[in-house]
């Protein structure tokens, strides 16, 4: 079944663990099993290292350590931020705004608030590049709007959202908090957390371990803690800390940001190479925008074949990629982003997402194109 040497083009879904992170994991897991909150030396040693990690994360993100809460991942962070702010500020208003192309951990959270808790949510539409229009946001803002969530980089086609412009509009026209999902942005495009009230990050998207994320919360943001049950994380998140994962986040983020410039340069070259190949293929449309886009994501559609057939074909050749956000992949729903872009059935059904990383090579790009051409020639409807 499994291929010994697969070509991995699904780095948007998850990434291999960086060897240095893995080394620390292997070294620490057998030794540091004590509860990081324990008062004996076993707990203190790991507790101190977790706090050092928190300080490093803060420094790298230009925030303060007390604004950093470790979570089980970005999905938890998004849930905690959106629900926590909604419940703590409902007395001020029950209107919230997000985009129609968020990751499902944001979209489904808003749906739940809407359907089960009586909040009113405006979902901003997007243009043909998958980008929201700031003027739509301006119109949607109301005196009772309490939170706006806008992702920094779209996880399906890579569009960079005009976050800074949006924040300015929110500041000038409302009293709402601003939350952004930075999962696909950190280490990949320039980011600036100084103007956001809350943000979410994930470790396994930047060569860290799964089950590890961070929530950034500025002081003064009124929030109800989602997971009660202890003094951990300043009472923001109960439960025994996943200390070693939290510790590894510091190193994971440092490595991702240290090599950021090199990664962006090499991935941009790979992205251009793939785009050039694709432009020459009839029946192929590139869905990712040309500008204001993360080079790490390239989404395209084959108009005369469905994603499912193509994925099977690639899989049989040991090439791993996705059709859309992996968090919806088993429901056979078409891509949320492409649906919102109103691209038409053919583009919707034949979409593929290539998740690039600096670990990929030009040869792998060429192999991807060769297999794609062969598949289209063999199975494509004339």
């Amino acid at each position, binding site marked *: 079944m499994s291929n010994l040497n697969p070509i991995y083009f699904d780095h948007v879904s998850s990434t291999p663990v960086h060897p240095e992170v893995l080394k*620390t994991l292997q070294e*620490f897991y057998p030794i540091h099993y004590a509860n990081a909150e324990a008062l004996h030396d076993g707990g203190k040693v790991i507790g101190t*290292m977790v706090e*050092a*990690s928190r300080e*490093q994360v803060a420094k790298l993100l*230009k*925030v*303060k350590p007390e604004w950093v809460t470790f979570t089980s991942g970005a999905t938890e962070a998004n849930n905690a931020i959106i629900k926590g702010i909604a419940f703590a500020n409902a007395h*001020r208003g029950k209107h919230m705004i997000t985009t129609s192309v968020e990751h499902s951990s944001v979209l489904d959270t808003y749906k739940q608030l809407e359907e089960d808790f009586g909040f009113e949510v405006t979902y901003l539409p997007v243009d043909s590049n998958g980008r929201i229009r700031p003027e739509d946001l301006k119109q949607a803002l109301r005196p009772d709007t309490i939170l706006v969530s806008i992702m920094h980089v779209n996880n399906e086609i890579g569009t960079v959202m005009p976050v800074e412009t949006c924040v300015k509009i*929110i*500041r*000038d026209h*409302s*009293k*709402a*908090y*601003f939350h952004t999902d930075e999962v696909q942005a950190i280490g990949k495009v320039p980011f*600036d*957390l*100084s*103007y956001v*009230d809350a943000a979410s990050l994930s470790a396994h998207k930047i060569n860290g371990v799964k089950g590890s994320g961070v929530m950034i919360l*500025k*002081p*003064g*943001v009124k929030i109800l803690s989602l997971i009660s049950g202890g003094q951990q994380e300043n009472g923001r998140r109960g439960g025994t800390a996943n200390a070693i994962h939290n*510790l590894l986040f*510091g*190193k994971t983020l*440092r490595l991702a940001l240290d090599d950021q410039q090199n990664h962006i340069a090499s991935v941009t070259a790979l992205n251009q190479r793939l785009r050039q190949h694709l432009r020459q293929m009839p029946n192929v449309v590139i869905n990712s925008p040309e500008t204001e886009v993360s080079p790490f994501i390239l989404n395209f559609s084959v108009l005369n074949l469905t994603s499912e057939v193509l994925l099977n074909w690639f899989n049989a050749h040991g090439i791993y990629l996705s059709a859309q956000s992996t968090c919806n992949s088993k429901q056979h729903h078409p891509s949320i982003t492409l649906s919102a872009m109103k691209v038409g059935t053919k583009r919707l059904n034949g979409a593929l997402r290539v998740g690039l990383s600096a670990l990929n090579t030009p040869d792998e790009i060429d192999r991807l194109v060769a297999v794609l051409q062969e598949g289209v020639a063999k199975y494509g409807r004339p």
Partner: protein
Amino acid sequence: MAVPNAQHAIVRFGELTLKGLNRRVFVQQLRTNILRRLTAAPKAKVIVKYDHALVFLNGEPEHVVIDALTDTFGISSFSMVYPCVPELESVCEMAVQLLSGEEPCTFKVDTRRKDKTLAFTSVDWDKAVGGAVLRQTSHKVDIHDPQITVRIEVDARTAYLSVKVYPGLGGMPVGSIGKALVLLSGGIDSPVAAYLAMKRGLEIEAVHFASPPYTSPQAVRKVYDLAIQLSRYQPHLIVHTIPVTDLQLELYAKANPSYAVILLRRHMIRLATRLAKQRSAQALITGESLGQVASQSMESMSVIQAVTELPVLRPVVAFDKLDIIAIAKKIDTYRISIEPYADCCTLFSVVNPITRPRLNDVLAEEVKIDYEPMLEACLAGMETQTPVTQTADYL
């Protein structure tokens, strides 16, 4: 409500406003120092006015700027200024928000209209904003002696609010007085001496004497950690490490052991003097405090001082140990200083060190070794570094 971001900081100068003709030099030095401390906020800009400076954040994080200004000598105090729509409702709301983070205290509101055509008087706003704060927070009004003054400056386009006055460190801008070389042992006193010297406007470099292999690399690392802590006040603090092992061994082999420490001290001052001249430093700084240990008696100090023509400044000379410790804790060097790594003076310690040396006796002991080539060898082995924070292996 979204957490507001400050637009700029108003920085009030310290003592340097007293300076006459040199004023410009002092103020420019302060501007340079603030910018050097703001490398983590490259978009921030500093504009110097007559008796204050403005630091514009240009989107840089507020806490980075606050930390930088808190650590810069030559500032008496500063405030963060928050812009807002010039409408009463918004101004009230922002005032409430800025004050709700503070401990309950007394306050007053002081509105100034830069544009006198605005359709309200300053007193109208003082009352309205004060009322809003009174209703929505637990602060109390005191218009005569308030703990916090909410300052509002308003024109047709923007209202600017400032609330909290952050205390500055005072003193003079580092580098505005000159440059000195501090002898940094790794103990509690010398970092405090360095801090106080910087506070009076001296730029410093540090020299450390090591005795490898009798002293460990951790002892040098400890001095680097102290230097990193002090570099909050003067970025890029340079540390010179001079190995003195051979000189020490020779001293203990040939001179009277009771004189070993005082002789070593004289050689250290000789080495420091030569280094100071190389580095254009005009004085030496030590952490000596009268009567603390044998080498810090009046007699010892004068015998040690005799080897240099540079002024030897001793900022903590008249401080009690507890006073020194209090400053060391404030500047967060104490926890580093008490790490247990031996420095070169604690080695070969003798039972009966001489506490009231006479210069003639010292000279008689000193000539027992041919120290000049050894001093040259010490200097040749010197290592110079600008210490930076070491990342732990697991990070």
